[in-house]
């Protein structure tokens, strides 16, 4: 992510906020509202929903940590990937958000400011 002015400015941001908010509220309200008329999620809806969290989260994480470079060595020698692997191990062993962030940031800074500096 890079800072700077957003194209389309504030209106664009507010349109996004409101439309995402309204849709998300619709999801939250859906069955709480409809209960009595529809009591269960149809199987064809429930099964794909089970895979939304792992698929979406991985699609969010991986591109942050990995950028494909011309050589394998250059792809691997990336502080973000190294820090991500370290944090991934901590996430796996502790399932603790705070510990994961702490180790990941420490590893990023170690490699950015010391090892690769």
């Amino acid at each position, binding site marked *: *992510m890079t*800072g*700077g*002015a*957003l*194209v389309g400015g*504030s209106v664009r*941001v507010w349109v*996004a906020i409101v*439309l*995402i*908010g309204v*849709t*998300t*509220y619709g999801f*939250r*309200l*859906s*069955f*709480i*509202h*409809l*209960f*009595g008329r529809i009591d269960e*999620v149809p199987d064809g*809806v*429930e099964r*794909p*929903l*089970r895979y*939304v*969290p*792992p*698929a*979406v*989260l*991985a*699609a*969010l*994480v*991986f*591109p*942050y*940590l*990995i*950028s*494909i470079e011309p050589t394998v060595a250059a792809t691997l020698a990336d502080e973000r990937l190294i820090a*991500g692997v370290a944090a*991934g191990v901590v996430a*796996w062993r502790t399932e*603790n*958000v*705070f510990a*994961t*962030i702490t180790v*990941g*940031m420490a590893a*990023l*800074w170690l490699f*950015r400011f010391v090892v690769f500096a």
Partner: protein
Amino acid sequence: MDGLPLDPDTRAGVRDVSPLLLGIVPFGLVAGIAAVDAGLGLAEAVGLSVIVFAGASQLAAIELLAQNAPLAVVIGTAVVINVRMVMYSASIAPYLAEYGRRFRAGLAYLLTDQAYALSVAEYERTPDRTRWRYYLGAAATLWVVWQITTVVGFVIGAGVPDAWGLTFAVPLVFLALLVPAMKDRPTVLAAVVGGAVAVAAAGLPMNLGLLTGAVSGIVAGLATEVIGG
């Protein structure tokens, strides 16, 4: 907490959600940091946290807005991330069915991963709880902490140099959520395919990489389930 003028059911909700705040506080801080880093104003950052109130989708939307992705892609990506709420809504609906329609509509606004998981588990464990009070104790606590940490994160993010790479905490939060979501073979495959496709598709026009990766991962999970069973 004992000093709060709350009934025992609400207090139980506040008490049970407290350990989870250890994960919510850094997540909320990151939501604020990411917003200021992307060039959003404080009103927009708070607007996101109040109107959307769903962390992962907020972070994805912020990133895509910062990259000037088309609005349809920003919204489509956030919607895919939040569609899981339908599952929670269906699961908690029978427990809230006794309440009035308008009251339920209010309760629904506060529905989150954590409030859902805590409440449904507690309703099974302690059937004589006043359900809405317990739910509100957990869900409203999360809401308040989320708003405060968004603002604090925004202020911190504005004061720290870009070179520190504070927004690297964004993928770290996702990573901490991703690992427990990989529970069995189909969910692991959904993650591996979703992640790999998102990396390969990172150069797609209109920032469609995330959406393409997510949809590929969901399809991979379903396919594994069908083949495996």
